[in-house]
């Protein structure tokens, strides 16, 4: 764990260097933003599990209130986790052959991790990168945003991200919901300039479905649910805890 965060710091330094050489001198505001970023000393895995453990009490009573009116800007409790550095400069620096920093494609991809979390990564073509640089030149107060759309309830939430991280964990906190995201730049007039739009994802349920098929019924479901081991998600494969203990 400690090893990872020190390499993360080195990774951070390297990427700053890289950005400096790529960007023109007029990107002072951008690079200073990068220098000032606070690298988390806790590993994201720890952050992740801490966040998840808040949801570990999965009985119905523990779920937060979900009643939200359909507004343009729904306030999702979106929290982010930051990673120890962009993926190309990763712990395996000792091996020959660096994997590319970019594949020269502008895209934003979302992966569902579990009922509450998603993961997004993005990449740029050289053309897109130039376009972004232009923005930073002309609008120093521009914000890099991940706009997350809740497709079921409507509305979206804006999350500030670090462009050069190229990946981010999204605490969506809404099971059984469809989402889409947009990576873009939000200028000081509130105008959103789209860089890339993601695929659509749907978080899984964390409870049984409410839908009952009338042809089949489900009268003893509560009892069968308990007998089936329901409510103990993720406790099935205790294999590793077993052998690590001893």
């Amino acid at each position, binding site marked *: 764990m400690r090893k990872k965060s020190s390499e993360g710091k080195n990774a951070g330094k390297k990427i700053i260097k890289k950005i400096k050489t790529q960007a023109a001198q007029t990107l002072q505001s951008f690079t200073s933003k990068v220098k000032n970023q606070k690298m988390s000393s806790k590993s994201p895995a720890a952050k992740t599990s801490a966040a998840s453990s808040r949801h570990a009490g999965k009985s119905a009573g523990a779920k937060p209130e979900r009643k939200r009116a359909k507004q343009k800007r729904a306030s999702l409790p979106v929290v982010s986790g930051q990673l120890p550095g962009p993926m190309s400069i990763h712990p395996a620096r000792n091996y020959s052959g660096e994997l590319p920093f970019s594949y020269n494609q502008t895209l934003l991809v979302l992966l569902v991790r579990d009922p509450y979390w998603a993961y997004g990564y993005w990449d740029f073509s050289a053309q897109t990168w130039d376009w972004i640089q232009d923005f930073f030149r002309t609008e120093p107060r521009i914000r890099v945003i991940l706009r997350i759309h809740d497709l079921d309830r409507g509305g979206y939430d804006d999350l500030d991200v670090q462009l050069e991280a190229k990946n981010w964990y999204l605490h969506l906190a809404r099971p059984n919901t469809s989402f889409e995201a947009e990576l873009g730049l939000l200028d000081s007039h509130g105008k959103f300039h789209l860089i890339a739009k993601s695929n659509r994802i749907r978080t899984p349920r964390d409870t049984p479905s409410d839908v009952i098929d009338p042809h089949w019924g489900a009268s003893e479901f509560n009892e069968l649910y308990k007998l*089936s081991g329901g409510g103990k998600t993720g406790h099935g494969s205790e294999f590793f805890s077993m052998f690590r203990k001893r």
Partner: protein
Amino acid sequence: MKKGFLFIVLHAHLPYVRHPEHEDFLEERWFFEAISETYIPLIDMFDRLLAEGVRYRMTMSLTPTLISMLTDPLLQERYVRHVNRLIELAEKEIVRTAHEPAFNRVAHMYRDRYGRAKEIFENRYGRNLVSAFRKFLDSGCLEIITCAATHGFLPLMIPVQSSVRAQIATACDHYEKNLGRRPQGIWLPECGYYPGYDQVLRENGLRYFLVENHGILHAEPRPRYGVYRPIMTPQGVYAFGRDTESSKQVWSAEEGYPGDYDYREYYRDIGFDLPEDYIRPYIHPDGIRINTGFKYYRITGTSDYKEAYDPDRAREKAASHAGNFMFNREKQVEYLYDQLGFQSVIVAPYDAELYGHWWFEGPQFLEFLIRKIVFDSPMLGLTNGPDYLDQFPRHQPSEPSFSSWGYKGFAEVWLEGSNDWIYHHLHAASRRMQELADRFKQPSDLERRALNQAARELMLAESSDWAFIMKTGTMVPYAIHRTREHMIRFLRIHHDLMNRQVDERWLSDIESKDNIFPDINYHLYDSASF
């Protein structure tokens, strides 16, 4: 009439680890250990049952990477070399423990075991254990199901559907080539299912698959029978859900059988305990201490105090645990039948390596269990997918939920701080593979070889084992190395093809190293094919 059925699945998998460029490669030992400690004991058991005409029903998944390794002449040769060394060590151990009867007895046990393993491997099956499994498949008692080509974790491949299709189609073709028929069932890697994947399963002729407990319990609409009957997905494929009760009895750290004090202690191996000058030829050539498989102690208790292993006591324990397991399953099916009015199926999947490798007495437990159920149980029967579906064809239509059997039940094990970085690369490679498949409709012979090799490199990079190892922290540098190596090889092939300058010599070299799936078909990545 049986009140219910037990559907046991042993998932046998190893990632493709084959290093012809090294004389003695540490990670190849996973393969040798699995053969000696799990596959051969199971094969020995199936042979006994077959010889005695015991009509059992059980299921094993054999992954394409494992089948490839079992049929690879280099690895077969290396196994023979490995087992010979262990027999040699066993002879030395008999001498070393001559004055300690309790340990000497165990040394003899290992000598007999490894001698028998060699006999079964070389003589009985001519070094090809897949032929053994095929024989049991032919007998109608052991059902064999397939798994994704390189055990890629499919829910994290949603953005690259061509990879999902290639993993499944390649697996089914490979199964057909090695076992002489199309597979009926599939073990999704880590039981990782995502709604909509049933389509690619149906397209490949698969009838059923397994999911984790909440994959069924959270299905929509609500499953009438909980996890005790399969459901039929929108595409008409059947999903069986894992029963946690029967799993817990075996897996659980607190309550599971394998922790019993009479069973063999895994963590007292002579590879670590004995002085280096004695044990050196049997551990890693660089002097790294590793497991040899020679363990002399029983668990005894929770402290470090351990007593000598007593094989007879352990065997009796295994018999008693099998009886207990059967009793509990009978109670389960009896309750479901008498109180809730239906015949149930209890799905009990396990990693095969639990039986024999982690839990030394596991295969004995299984054999006792099978015999007891077949001969002694009026209300509990053994079943497998095809038998069960033939007997009970009608099941509730319902869509399973995204789920896996990994820790926490979804994708976190393979998508967290240690391993999330890989997906940007794996997906980029998959997109490029699709580009190549679309572009090269009429490749030259050399180009075709390169295209197929690119597909191999991509698939090897996609093995979920690497992400898993990065998360569990066991042999992380190796896992990172494999991911990078296959990615870099892929990227080079892609570059060479796009620039029409394939280096034949370099290509031949990696073809001989990453030689999995000789019949791989790069057209599977063609966007027109889906």
